[in-house]
């Protein structure tokens, strides 16, 4: 087992934890918002904040660090389009996480503490967080696509698929957001 293989394993393991965890949170979030159970919503929000800080953010940073080490150690260069796209995608998802998902989860936790989890304001905030996190998840799966296919500038189909993945994720997120908002409107406050 050489150094490159160790980096590759660590890179893949970090990606698995990061994306799998993100997906699990997204699915559980949808389930929790459908139950309209305020205690479960409060517990879930605490889990999100806790897991983001202790598991998902470290996993994302490890994926980045081992990815950079793989470029340095392996037959790759930072001039290659797929590596630039991967790094740009990472930057976008990091900005979304750092400037929106993290602060919003914190505000939501405070709001639940102050008003309880059953208020329309809390439900609306949960829906907004789920909406953005689903688009974020789509961007992450687009990065996986880019890492697996390693497209150059001439691979139009592969690049089109990479653009289509977050677009489809945004469409699905929007439809789920509307469905959730419709369900919430039907539930008496």
């Amino acid at each position, binding site marked *: 087992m050489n150094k490159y293989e160790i980096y590759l394993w660590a890179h893949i393991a970090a990606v*698995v934890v990061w994306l*799998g965890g993100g997906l699990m949170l997204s699915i559980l979030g949808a389930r929790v918002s459908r139950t309209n159970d305020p205690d479960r919503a409060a*517990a879930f929000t605490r889990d999100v904040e*806790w897991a983001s800080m202790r598991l998902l953010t470290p996993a994302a940073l490890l994926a980045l660090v081992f990815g950079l080490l793989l470029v340095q150690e392996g037959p790759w260069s930072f001039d290659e389009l797929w590596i630039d796209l991967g790094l740009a995608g990472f930057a976008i998802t990091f900005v979304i996480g750092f400037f929106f998902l993290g602060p919003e989860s914190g505000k939501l936790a405070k709001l639940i503490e102050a008003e309880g989890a059953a208020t329309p304001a809390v439900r609306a905030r949960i829906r907004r967080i789920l909406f953005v996190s689903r688009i974020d998840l789509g961007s992450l799966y687009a990065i996986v696509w880019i890492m697996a296919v390693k497209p150059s500038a001439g691979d139009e189909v592969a690049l089109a698929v990479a653009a289509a993945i977050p677009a489809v994720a945004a469409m699905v997120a929007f439809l789920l957001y509307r469905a959730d908002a419709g369900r919430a409107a039907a539930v008496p406050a």
Partner: protein
Amino acid sequence: MTRYELLLFLHIVGAVVWVGVVIFFQYLVFRAERTGDYGVLWGLLRDIEWLTNRLFIPATLLVLVSGILMVVDGPWSFSQLWIVIGLSAFAVTFALGKGVIEPVGKKVDVLVEEHGPDHPATRRQLQAMFLLMRVDVALLVVIVADMASKPTADDVWTLAVGAAILAATAVYVALRFRSLQAGASEAAPALAE
């Protein structure tokens, strides 16, 4: 973009969904165990049961089918050691899930219905189930390491690390099971009273 690259993407996505969700689930279980809230643990079990048919089984099949097609399409053969290890571990984790974890989960369902999630017997069964899931997590981690490093019979260190991870997990689970059984025999007379 080649067919092999497309299969590789599907294989990775399947693995991310399967392994990532299982690891993250264990993380939530670990957190709930520390708080000692068996109602939350029972809720997590219901979530994982809900996810099994909707997410895990499709993801597992995606990993298996795309992996087999990659061997057929790529420069690999089914006689290579790392592929044999991967397929064997896959068979073990599938058998563990279907043959052991699923029946224990059903027992938990019955116990919760009869006594609720906070009853000592339900607690023990829940703990036993989450312990068995940890064996599954260790197997999945070893499979990911095996796929990334692709060891041959000469890579003694790589094979030893994989074996050590499984051995350490087996010892941990055996010790925890013993303490669970000890707790059960201590609690039995009290429950009889």
